[in-house]
């Protein structure tokens, strides 16, 4: 009988059926859920995978896993440009300005630490760096940043009083970077929850004031790998308010996988550029799509 007949169709369906049980599929989906990929994206991925498995006639659980790994890597897209723009820029007026990198995110994700680590990397590459302590709110935030500055041997521009205007401090830092001919200015900002309109407006103001002095080369959103589905809200709002150009995924040295960045990257197209792997000055690494996916799948 031709494949158009009911019997042929059924036979074909059976022959091309994968050999995974429902439990196997549930387990795969669970792996994704446990990595914070999210219920929606996980279900979609598994549905796609089931189709792909049927089409390709893959039967072995190990091969299915390998296919999932491939799909995830494709989603994370190894071809994306993840380089950081840290070269000084020449303005329309022919004047040289330092590259300005602004670091933003919700409370406690690792912004200040990331600024410190990033300064370390840049100094090692021979760049001259200035830090700007535009977190004037949180207790001892400027001291914390200045400690990092001292550790890695770069100056920190800060206000001498708490509660100063963060935009003014950011402006001072960029001005100082310009005046001293620095290559890069790294501006640390206060943690702010994305649902706080006043604080998000303040961030908008910081950006407006900075860009009067020099363009922003990068706006880095620091996401904590332990963050669950709220990470997508964070990315959406910060992207809208601050024009995020890259993500730093911190605290990947723990057991959390940071799977939320898959949804973030898919929806916003903003790539993860760096990962944080600890509290020390050298615990910063470039993002590697395959390594990330392997971590996510627990390999």
């Amino acid at each position, binding site marked *: 009988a031709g494949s158009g007949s009911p019997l042929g169709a059924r036979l074909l369906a059976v022959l091309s059926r994968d050999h995974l049980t429902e439990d196997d599929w549930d387990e795969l989906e669970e792996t994704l859920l446990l990595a914070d990929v999210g219920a929606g994206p996980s279900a979609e991925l598994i549905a796609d995978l089931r189709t792909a498995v049927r089409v390709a006639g893959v039967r072995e659980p190990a091969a299915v896993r390998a296919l999932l790994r491939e799909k995830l890597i494709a989603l994370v897209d190894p071809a994306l440009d993840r380089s950081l723009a840290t070269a000084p820029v020449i303005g329309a007026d022919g004047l040289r300005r330092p590259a300005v990198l602004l670091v933003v995110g919700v409370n*406690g*994700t690792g912004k200040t630490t990331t600024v*410190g680590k990033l300064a370390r990397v840049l100094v090692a590459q021979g760049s001259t760096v200035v830090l700007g302590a535009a977190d004037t709110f949180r*207790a001892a935030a400027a001291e914390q940043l200045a400690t990092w500055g001292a550790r890695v041997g770069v100056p920190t521009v800060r206000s001498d009083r708490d509660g100063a205007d963060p935009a003014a401090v950011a402006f001072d830092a960029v001005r100082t970077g310009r005046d001293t001919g620095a290559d890069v200015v790294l501006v640390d900002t206060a943690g702010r929850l994305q649902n706080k309109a006043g604080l998000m407006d303040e961030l908008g103001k910081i950006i407006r004031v900075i860009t009067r002095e020099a363009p922003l080369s990068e706006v880095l959103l620091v996401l904590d790998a332990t963050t669950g589905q709220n990470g997508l809200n964070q990315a959406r709002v910060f992207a809208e308010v601050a024009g995020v150009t890259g993500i730093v995924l911190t605290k990947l040295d723990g057991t959390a996988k940071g799977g939320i960045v898959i949804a973030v990257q898919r929806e916003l197209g903003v790539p993860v550029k760096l990962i944080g792997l600890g509290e020390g000055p050298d615990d910063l690494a470039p993002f590697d799509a395959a390594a990330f996916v392997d971590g996510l799948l627990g390999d």
Partner: protein
Amino acid sequence: MFATLSDRLTSTFKNLRTKGRLSEADIDATVREIRRALLDADVAVVVVREFTGKVRERALSAEVSGALNPAQQVVKIVNEELVAILGGANRPLAFAKTAPTVILLAGLQGAGKTTLAGKLALHLRGQGHTPLLVAADLQRPNAVTQLQIVGERAGVPVFAPHPGAQGSAGTDQVDTGDPVAVAREGLAVARTRQHDVVIVDTAGRLGVDAELMRQAANIRDAIDPDEILFVIDAMIGQDAVATAMAFQEGVGFTGVVLTKLDGDARGGAALSVASVTGRPILFASTGEKLTEFEAFHPDRMASRILDMGDVLTLIEHA
């Protein structure tokens, strides 16, 4: 973007409403929506499984109520089960029979421990207590300075014999001092100066960091706390369970504090941690200011996790 649970249940119920009683298939459909909502709220996978199992079982055994239609009953069951886990053993802070009461704070990096130390201090001072804050995080840059400022804002003294990690040019190896000794001395000082509560701030640590976990246990053993509060960020995802278990095993804790509830995370971690550790959630931290702090309300949290504010009104409309 997301359909809320209410939206999804409404459409599920649309089919149910016309029927007299729920079939097994109806219940399964409803339970699937609840599962999805719990996962979207970051409730841990193992907790979701157990929870939906329980709800399904209760819904099937159909505790028939004349006042509610079957769909309403499922929602009611869900709400009751949630509140039972979240508030199963809700209680206030435990004080020592003989002062001082010792409170140890522990948790992941950046969870909100130091801020909470200030909040607790202010709260207790307002109740007529005389707390002493102890700066036993000597690791994170300027953690000691931060606690000193927080203490000043709270109007509470801070015992900080060691400056901890602070900027000195060119030094990577900062002398980190001994947090166990600081905690022990802090307790001794509290006794001689007659403080009736001691709150010990510690460095953030990962569940997988065996060395730092041992240090936390050593601090515990040195001061024999009346309360060990596990401080956890409401935005945490599936890692909540592994982390809570690691702290449970590593230091053990008597209660939980959920922080950053002023955000828009649904806070499924609350359910996860309460469910896998059986420890009560004592407080909710709801802002960066020291006054933004309150007792934990299980019913509000249940509504938040499942978007139940709306769901409960469904009971009326279903």
